[in-house]
């Protein structure tokens, strides 16, 4: 996972609340067997059927900071929702409220999920709509969002912030304790289950 300190990119105003994970990525994409390449699935129904949809407008199409309404990422726990946002190029999602599992999944994949007040979100929407293509800076270190001349504060828990800034996914974090793992393994009894070498009822003597 890449370390995240600040990111500057085009802000995308998504004036919708309760965007559930089915809308972020429809269930048909769950049949895939890869963890990347989900960008085509992102907001697929809206992108296909609604020419006015924000990502269908050229000024926003290359956006990387999504500014959404309350209750973003509700519904099914599918991690694919975060993969789709990430693969499309989003580095941060700002909202007044996130579904708990979505927020957890976002943290695991290096996507910043910042919480702002509804007033601030409204102001951001206005800035981004008045000047399509405005760049937004998400400063994780200082928990600030800059857009035009305005600056807003966002919330993110300390632990997630630290992990994102260090660029540590859960696995990398655990691997920091590799010595502890090896020490534990060294003490395990020899009769603990081993799948190799292969033994079956037929190979048994």
């Amino acid at each position: 996972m890449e370390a995240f300190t600040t990111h500057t990119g085009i802000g995308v105003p998504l004036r919708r609340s309760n965007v559930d994970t089915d809308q972020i990525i429809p269930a048909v994409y769950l049949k895939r067997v890869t963890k990347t390449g989900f960008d085509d699935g992102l907001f697929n129904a809206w992108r296909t059927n609604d020419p006015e949809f924000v990502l269908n407008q050229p000024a926003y199409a290359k956006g990387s900071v999504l500014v959404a309404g309350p209750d973003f990422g509700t519904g099914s726990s599918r991690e694919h929702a975060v993969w789709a946002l990430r693969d499309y190029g989003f580095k941060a999602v700002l909202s007044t409220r996130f579904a708990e599992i979505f927020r957890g999944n976002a943290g695991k994949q290096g996507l910043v999920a910042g919480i702002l007040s509804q007033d601030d979100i409204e102001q951001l929407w206005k800035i981004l709509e008045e000047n399509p293509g405005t760049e937004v800076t998400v400063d994780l270190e200082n928990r600030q969002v800059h857009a035009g001349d305005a600056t807003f504060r966002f919330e993110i828990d300390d632990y997630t912030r630290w992990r994102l800034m260090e660029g540590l996914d859960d696995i990398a974090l655990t691997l920091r304790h590799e010595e502890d793992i090896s020490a534990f393994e060294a003490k395990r009894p020899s009769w603990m289950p081993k799948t190799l070498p292969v033994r079956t009822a037929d190979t048994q003597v």
Partner: protein
Amino acid sequence: MAGTLAEKVWADHVVRRGENGEPDLLYIDLQLLHEVTSPQAFDGLRQEGRTPRRIDQTIATEDHNTPTIDIDKPIADITSRTQIETLRRNAEEFGVRIHSLGDKDQGIVHVVGPQLGLTMPGITVVCGDSHTSTHGAFGALAFGIGTSEVEHVLATQTLPLTPFKTMAVTVTGSLKPGVTAKDIILAVIAKIGTGGGAGYVLEYRGEAIRELSMEGRMTICNMSIEAGARAGMIAPDETTFEYVKGRPHAPQGEDWDEAVAYWKTLRTDDDATFDAEVVIDADQLEPFVTWGTNPGQGLPLSAAVPAPEDFVDQTDRSAAERALEYMDLVPGTPLKDIKVDTVFMGSCTNGRIEDLRAFASVLEGRTKHPDVRVLVVPGSARVRLQAEQVGLEKVFFDFGAEWRQAGCSMCLGMNPDQLAPGECAASTSNRNFEGRQGKGGRTHLVSPVVAAATAVRGTLSSPSDLLTNA
């Protein structure tokens, strides 16, 4: 300090205690993989340039998507074929042991682990599958995980976890003939509800549990998740040791003695406390069936379809209303009058050799009801072989049942074995959710002997109904 079984196994696997609200880092002894939830985990490893830490503690098999007929032909469904081929490629690339379709040790992950002797008391077992709780029957701490966690275990052989709470489920007394482990667990879920176990590891204990075979214990632990629990456990005893002994991967010689000595310490101390407790009286139990669309909507077979008004709780009432509509049932109808189109005998809940034996013992010498289709799907290829060795296949054949190849099959209908819309099934599996066994299909969860009696009479029935009518 006094501890419960779950706490002891947890404590013995802590690599590193979490500080300041951080989770503990828990060591994982065994990871089971199948085709549906592993591909992204392997892809994640590749993306980060990582490799599995312990391929010798990892095993894969194909089960969810596999066809149960014509297994020597290419799999027709593209998605199924892709998932299975992806698993095979990943196993080959990373050196993971795999039992593929056609192999004698292929089968449902939760049947394969115990049968190879890999599932042992006191170990930690994970799989990207909620019914991993099955392995708790051995006194293992076993639970389902998500795909990111599968990747985490592949890369580190550990998981960061916060401790679970513990609940004792004490089953007193003894089961009457014709009443089985399946009826115990359906009664437990009906009692505590589908969310009653949330956040807990359930420990099943008491006389009736001690008297169960390993197969029966696995049936019970398997469905812990249906009560919302993370895991279910049963303290290991002579029945457990007897079952493990001599299996391909079981400890041998001195190792065996050392292992058993340790396993004997794996019981809840007399002065340990649980965070919650429920008690069920086995003497009072009858065969249980579900009438609704979640596993908690169950009743004794002698009861009638309930009316929504019977439920005090508003949520239960509206759930009942919806369920009755979906199941097309009229309140007051005796459950035994419910006609069934299909009997599904199989799954990780009841697809083991003892289950097949119990099922066959009721069928033997009887004839199938002409309107019922009977699908018998062994939990693993090895179970299929065992059944054929003792002649069960002939019993099924004479009865008019279809004898299939191993896999999850109609438990979730990811392969072609599905109910047609509106069809009604008596199923020995674990989930009666809307559309689980096929779009529009209606499921009644039952034990193997109830499934068998139902196949004879064409309506939900218990073996004792066959005697009275004979």
